[in-house]
């Protein structure tokens, strides 16, 4: 049995299925680049589907991304910027012809090309529309921290900028959905590395500052073996220890403390926390689903 403060791999919440532990219908998965967002998003979608929910795994324009084999109730939805924008224009103008005319206009195309915020609004709108299409859950593989955060602010900013009119109303609807804890939650993926941890803390602080989407889950991904081994090694060590090992150990102890300092306040704030061991041979969505989000029956 691991203690509450340990970083040893642990599932979401014992005896509670991921569907119960994470209520919002739309989960936006973000984190610094390279932390394994896509795999965690796929694993989470897999877990929801395994619990019986029809789930959309949403990806953006990831031309070269491989989609892992997932539960049959998961449907991979690729949202393209252009078609999302066309859908919004069509909805607002009530005419496909008019929407096309507007978006294909030579000046509008250039204007939109230089001001990409409209695309972000359109894509977030499309995500919220997925429930109308019959999905009970949507797990969104978001862009990396810096840009992902900018995305979440776009609807509110556009709503403020546009003041009135149908596009303003749409931006306001999207912003409202993003800030509603019953509808949207943020999943933050992080690693036990100093730079990644400090960027994750900044992200969480920014979220609170802008009253944006509430964070519901932090995933400590790919916890290295050596960190787990160092956690088990008692303070007292032999005199004869190799200097390189002593240095490596010291560094890992500091890193462990850093992780504790990071996780403590998150747990205190009521955020769900789960950690996943690093394993070169098992970096798959199923592995993530099984280790981090086991179903009630399995636990």
């Amino acid at each position: 049995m691991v203690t509450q403060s340990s970083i040893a791999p642990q599932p979401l919440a014992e005896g509670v299925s991921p569907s119960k532990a994470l209520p919002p219908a739309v989960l936006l998965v973000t984190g610094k680049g390279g932390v394994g967002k896509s795999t965690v998003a796929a694993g989470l979608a897999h877990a929801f589907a395994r619990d019986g929910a029809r789930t959309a795994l949403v990806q953006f324009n990831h031309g070269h991304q491989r989609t892992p084999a997932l539960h049959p109730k998961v449907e991979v939805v690729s949202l393209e910027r252009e078609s999302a924008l066309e859908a919004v224009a069509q909805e607002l103008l009530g005419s496909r012809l008019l929407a096309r005319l507007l978006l294909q206009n030579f000046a509008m195309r250039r204007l939109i090309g230089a001001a990409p915020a409209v695309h972000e609004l359109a894509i977030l709108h499309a995500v919220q529309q997925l429930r109308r299409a019959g999905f009970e859950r949507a797990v969104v593989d978001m862009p990396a921290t810096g840009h992902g955060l900018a995305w979440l602010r776009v609807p509110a900013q556009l709503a403020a900028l546009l003041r009135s009119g149908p596009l303003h109303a749409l931006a306001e609807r999207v912003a409202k959905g993003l800030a509603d804890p019953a509808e949207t939650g943020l999943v933050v993926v992080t690693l036990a590395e100093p730079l990644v941890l400090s960027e994750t803390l900044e992200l969480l602080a920014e979220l609170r500052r802008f009253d944006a989407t509430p964070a519901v889950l932090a995933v400590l991904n790919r916890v290295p073996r050596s960190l787990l081994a160092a956690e088990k090694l008692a303070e007292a060590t032999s005199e004869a220890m190799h200097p390189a090992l002593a240095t490596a150990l010291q560094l890992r102890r500091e890193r462990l403390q850093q992780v504790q300092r990071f996780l403590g306040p998150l747990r205190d704030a009521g955020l769900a926390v789960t950690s996943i061991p690093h394993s070169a041979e098992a970096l798959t969505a199923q592995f993530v689903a099984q280790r981090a989000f086991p179903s009630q029956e399995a636990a």
Partner: protein
Amino acid sequence: MATAAPQVIVCAGGGGVGKTTTSAALALALSATPGESKRRVLVVTVDPARRLADALGCASSEPTQQWVEVDGHPLRVLMPKPEDAMQTFAEAVFAGSPEAMARFQRNPIYASLASALGGIQEFVALVTIVQALDEGYDAVVVDTAPSRHALDFLRYPERLATLLESRAMGWLSGLAERVHGRGGRRAKLVDWGRRRVEGALALLLDPSIVKELAALFTELASERGRVVALAHRAKALLLGPSASFVLVGAPTQTSVADLAYLAQQLGELGATPKLIVLNRAEREPEAWLTESDASWSAAEKRVQRALRQEADERVSAGNASEAALRERHIEAPVVRLPEADLKAPVDVVRALSAALTHLEVPERLVHDSSPPHAL
């Protein structure tokens, strides 16, 4: 004094692969390489995360431009702040026309644009680079934002120039009158499609917004010459003969896919990567990891074994990634850097800089290129 174009080294790669650290290490290696005369090196980050400050041990709250000295080697560091982007943009566009600049900045849309426009940040980084070059540098290292955004950065000058050069600007700046004013009557029958577009805009947007938008574009259009010249200069610098691209990656399948994608996109822009740097992918584990001592406790041996296993995984992942790159016909030489198991980010930069120097990377990047061209 550098009168010729400096060597521009653009570092691009996916997220989380150590791009900023590598850029800083490369800049330090370029500055520290002993030579005939000291190289003047500028390192600039386009990444909004501003991790460059951490990597070089300088305060990120400090001014956008500063000199940093690492082990006696001076580096000029540029970190354009996102919150200053619109101000810098306005100053660059309206240099010499303070009244137009004041009108531009009074426009209510201006303030909202400041945070809403992603591309402005990229453009401002370019402006900052072009301006800094007037100070004369021998080498400039550019740390780009992750993956696709790296390419946006290269394409933005073109996009902005296209927007401003085109008749689109005229159309946009006359928009307010035609959409909500009485000027629309004069439109001819051939303009049917455009009138429809204007009608659609009137349906979507508040009239005052269209008016402000039009005013903003009128101001921009009046200064288009300067913006276009800046954009073209930046493009010549980034895609010209004195630019080299260094792709930075990690030994993972995702990162290799990113590298292949970037190499292909670069090809479409008429460029090829000069070098690929794989981080955390040493060619062999450090010697001490294989030595054992009977006096070690079982717990110590467990830690050593875990470290050894991690190192072995990096070595084989590096081998697999190199093979995968060759399979995808990416010909650029691959430099493999070790995991720098150090605490302070600056120490990591030092260690990687030493590794790059040892592998003669600075020489390969600076001398192996076409002769410098004047801008």
